[in-house]
């Protein structure tokens, strides 16, 4: 009995080293960003100490200055508005489309074609669409937050519809049948039974969409240029000037903009881990 237990406790050194390297790859830049964010420009010497050494004192002056330069509360508001709206509308639209396509592609060639058409959107690079979109949104008076939200909804549709349609395989069809026999309409079945059962996928889609929209520079930059409406990543471009980059303020600002995403990720990842279909049907 004890032998297998002992064997299980053996350390897999290859895996451990790979994991350590992976961890360093993630934490090293984060560490650098943190220490630089707290340093004054005079501490930024051209040596190892300048890049990696601890700041002489822990002050929040850089953060305050970065907030001032980026018009933080205003740009944060814009970023939150765009990101939250995209996530909420996206989850509603993608899950509905994913539900329909997930249930029908195997049975109907027409729906299979629609599915493939939507998925093919993944292979269209943004650069090709950029100029026509700028013109179109301007003509339609959508060179604002609404225009950016609508574009995000379209851009993230292929990947997220594919995820939702694939996830439908995890939800037994008998759940819908039970709901229909219980007297529910198709809409009610979707809303009351299927939608809550998609919770882990909602969390996944929310995280992916949030990261994409929160960090995106290009779309708001080209669509809302000249309107004076900025998101956080656009405002952060102010730290780069023709004469150089103020790394201390830039990193302080990056750390500030990272916090909402970190909190959001921590909330959502719990949902991903909790398989919501537990107990629905006999396993």
């Amino acid at each position, binding site marked *: 009995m004890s032998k297998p237990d002992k064997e299980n406790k053996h350390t897999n050194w290859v895996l451990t080293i790979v994991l350590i390297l992976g961890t360093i790859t993630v934490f090293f830049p984060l560490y650098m960003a943190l220490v630089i964010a707290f340093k004054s420009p005079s501490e930024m010497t051209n040596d190892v100490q300048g890049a990696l050494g601890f700041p002489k004192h822990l002050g929040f002056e850089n953060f305050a200055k970065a907030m001032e330069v980026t018009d933080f509360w205003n740009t944060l508001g814009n970023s939150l508005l765009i990101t939250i709206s995209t996530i909420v509308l996206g989850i509603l639209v993608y899950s509905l489309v994913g539900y329909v396509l997930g249930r029908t592609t195997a049975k109907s060639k027409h729906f299979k074609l629609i599915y493939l058409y939507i998925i093919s959107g993944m292979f269209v690079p943004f650069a090709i669409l950029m100029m026509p979109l700028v013109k179109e949104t301007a003509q339609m008076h959508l060179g604002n937050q609404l225009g950016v939200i609508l574009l995000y909804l379209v851009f993230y549709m292929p990947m997220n519809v594919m995820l939702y349609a694939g996830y439908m395989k995890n939800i*037994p069809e*008998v*759940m819908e*049948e*039970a*709901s*229909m*026999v*219980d*007297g*529910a*309409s198709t809409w*009610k079945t979707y809303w*009351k*039974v299927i939608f*809550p*059962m998609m*919770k882990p996928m909602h969390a996944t889609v929310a995280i992916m969409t949030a990261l994409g929209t929160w960090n995106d520079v290009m779309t708001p930059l080209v669509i809302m240029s000249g309107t004076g409406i900025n998101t956080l990543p656009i405002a952060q471009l102010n730290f780069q000037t023709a004469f150089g980059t103020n790394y201390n303020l830039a990193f302080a600002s990056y750390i500030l903009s990272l916090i909402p995403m970190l909190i959001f990720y921590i909330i959502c990842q719990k949902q991903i881990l909790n398989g*919501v*279909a*537990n*107990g*629905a*049907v*006999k396993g």
Partner: protein
Amino acid sequence: MSEVILNHIQKTYPNGYQAVKDFNMEIKDQEFIIFVGPSGCGKSTTLRMIAGLEDISGGTLKIDNVVCNDREPKDRNIAMVFQNYALYPHMTVRKNMEYPLKIAKLPKEEIDARIEHAAKILGLQDLLERKPKALSGGQRQRVAMGRAIVRNPKVLLMDEPLSNLDAKLRGQMRIEIARLHKELKATTIYVTHDQTEAMTLGDRIVVMSNGEIQQIDTPQNLYERPRNLFVATFIGMPVMNILEAEYDGSAIVGQDFRIEASDPLKKILDQQGFKNGRTLKIGIRPENLRVGTKEDKNTLAGRVDVAEMLGSTTNIYITTKNGSKVVAALPGDVRAQTDQELFLVPDLNMLHIFDAETGLNILEM
């Protein structure tokens, strides 16, 4: 009154496969009907057509004298218990049971009263605030039944509701379902492939094979008077012994036996022309065999292959001189050794005689 009438019901899939062929039946109010048969016989498909989960390809379905062919499941006033429970995992037991009642827009007091009543009947009072993942298999099964009965449906449909439970729990739940039916008096249609469930629960049983009804009858009649070879071999455990034979004008003669025919039997066999060499099949239930001696008449002699001690009975499998396999269900105190010679005497009053060509029971025609 909640009668269900199935008139020439058919189910044909787009690829041409006919899952149900010409299903005719009238199910009376408050009746407990069992659809039984092997996998793929069309029993679940028929149930799903009644539920409205499958389109009906042909024929007419009436529930409570209303044609329901094109009605949505929600408009049929039925409830269904699924094989794998199909509980809503994000809802508590109470919410699961509330769901159909809220859709029906019943007042809150009525909903609460019905849930309390169903929970009391099914012993779920302490589980109402739990989610399905925190319940055992038997408890989930009871919740699924609770969700079905709170609606007071005209027809209660059950699709192999006990097949996921272990043998002991299955036995308990079988008794629960029988009690529940007595209490609720709802017309119930129950699909199973387990003949014990079929025989113990049903007022009438529909035996199906290859999409066709083989026989509709009471459990006792199915056992005692099977209409054909399929029913005879499907109902009863161990399976009925089937031996080939011919009628020589005075006796039924097989390779290993000779059974003198009684006068009424002779008359039937003569009338149906079995004298002219038409082959018969003799059916003998294992429990209608007893251990005899060499001197006994009409014996089946053979050597013991296996003896299964089951406690109250002993099943003894023998192979006759000519290679026929015969099983006898004997009292539990009977002992036999492998290779021991054994003489089995059939109860001649309990013989079943089938036309080998059509498979029909010639005594029931």
